[in-house]
């Protein structure tokens, strides 16, 4: 794909001005890192605050009397449990209990939901939702072009964002949101994120993206030693990996079931029927044959995505994500292994470009922030 055909977020020029190194990601031209570098960006988010452009994410609006029933029939979590101003993590599932996409569902009202989906799967999800319409009375609108989305994450995120809004942020509970104004413009302020830190995701009209981003940098004293840093895709990936969160296309795909991926907590088998429910119910009863685990490399070497995993000398699975963990200062990863070996403490090996490197299965998340 040539650079001219890549999609751009409304912050593209801003990223270039800030010295972002731009790469292709799921059809988008996105910054992989800024001059501070991935390690600094990662640490800033863990200890202070990091700013992320996530405007490439897709937004699909579901309106109508059948909105909740429709989403509940196609997704694994129970959307009927959401209250106005609440969001949850869920998955669009196939008939085989595997994953079309993972997403957030925001409830604005009983007849108004917003699905926030992955950038590279937005078109697929849109087609899937439309081709799986049923009896429910719903209107679907692809609103991906109507929003910029900026994530401000880290222990200082709240105090920084509070200087730009009168909405009392302390009152917004985790995985809840409010509509309010940020820097004087209409915004959805959501206490959610993909870093393992406290923080917010702010949705607004795309024409306000540059001003919002700049205000957040200024409020976070970007450029000073203890200031906020803009963060690229590389830090976003290492942060979510340390926090043990799945990435679509890696831990979860159309070939992995929710239960294999340890997403039983968003698989509400008793809520009524949904796509793939029967397969998942049977899998839950019989047990999965393979399971996603976290591991830590215990000798010199860095495991990477796609490398083979060995247990007791035999090839047993593959690494879904592997990377240095900048905050933990360890080399970690996630992998699928046969269920009988998926126990904490089990020694495994990763084939790092022809060299078998020792690793050990450890609890996930690798990193958990201290709750105030």
């Amino acid at each position, binding site marked *: 794909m040539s650079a001219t055909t890549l999609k751009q977020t409304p912050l593209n020029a801003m990223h270039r001005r800030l010295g972002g190194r731009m790469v292709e990601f799921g059809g988008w031209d996105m910054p992989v890192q800024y001059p501070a570098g991935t390690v600094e960006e990662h640490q800033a988010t863990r200890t202070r605050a990091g700013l992320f452009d996530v405007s490439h994410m897709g937004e699909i609006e579901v309106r109508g009397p059948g909105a909740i029933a429709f989403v509940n029939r196609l997704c694994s979590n129970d959307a009927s449990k959401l209250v106005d101003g609440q969001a949850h993590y869920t998955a669009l599932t196939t008939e085989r209990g595997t994953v079309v996409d993972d997403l957030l569902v925001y409830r604005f009202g009983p007849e108004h939901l917003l699905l926030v989906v992955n950038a590279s799967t937005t078109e697929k999800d849109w087609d899937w939702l439309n081709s799986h319409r049923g009896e429910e009375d719903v209107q679907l609108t692809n609103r991906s072009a109507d929003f910029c989305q900026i994530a401000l994450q880290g222990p200082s995120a709240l105090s920084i964002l509070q200087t730009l809004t009168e909405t009392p942020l302390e009152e917004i509970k985790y995985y809840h949101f409010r509509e309010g104004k940020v820097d004087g413009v209409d915004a959805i302020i959501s206490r959610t994120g993909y870093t393992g830190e406290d923080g917010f995701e702010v949705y607004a009209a795309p024409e306000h993206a540059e001003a919002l981003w700049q205000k957040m940098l200024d409020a976070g004293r970007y450029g000073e030693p203890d200031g906020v840093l803009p963060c690229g895709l590389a830090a976003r*990936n290492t942060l979510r990996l340390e926090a043990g969160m799945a990435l679509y296309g890696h831990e979860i795909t159309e070939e992995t079931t929710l239960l294999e991926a340890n997403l039983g907590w968003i698989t509400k088998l008793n809520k009524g029927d949904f796509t793939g429910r029967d397969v998942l119910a049977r899998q839950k009863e019989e047990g999965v044959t393979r399971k996603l685990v976290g591991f830590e490399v215990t000798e010199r070497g860095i495991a990477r995505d796609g490398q083979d995993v060995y247990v007791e000398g035999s090839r047993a699975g593959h690494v879904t994500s592997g990377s240095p963990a900048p905050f933990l200062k360890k080399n970690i990863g996630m992998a699928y292994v046969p269920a009988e070996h998926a126990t904490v403490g089990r020694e495994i090996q990763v084939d790092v470009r022809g060299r078998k490197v020792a690793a050990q299965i450890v609890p996930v998340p690798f990193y958990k922030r201290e709750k105030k």
Partner: protein
Amino acid sequence: MANVPEGLYYSKDHEWLRVEGETGTVGITDHAQHSLGDVVYVELPKSGETFAAHDTFGSVESVKAVSELFLPVAGEVTEVNESLTDEPEKVNTDPYGDGWMLRVKLSNRGEVDSLLSAAEYEDYIGSLE
């Protein structure tokens, strides 16, 4: 703009070579370390190993990516920069100095003629942008 010191030889794989008598010192260029980002891991061979020109002699890894290292000329490894095990970031901070990787005894001194001069390498990386 990447730093490309005079007096060194360069490869299109972005390694540099400093020749002193029969000994060559090898590292990666400022351009290479900058493209790679924060270096977190360097895998190097042991003293005594021999390599042909353009052989892979190790790898260097950033948080995001792995890059193989290619020896610009044939030689036998006489010394390895062991300090990069604990301080791989030296490759970023001082790629032509403390971030050096190997010293080799050159097998064929004439091979250096096939490498790029500083000016040629500068043109080469300019053409990549």
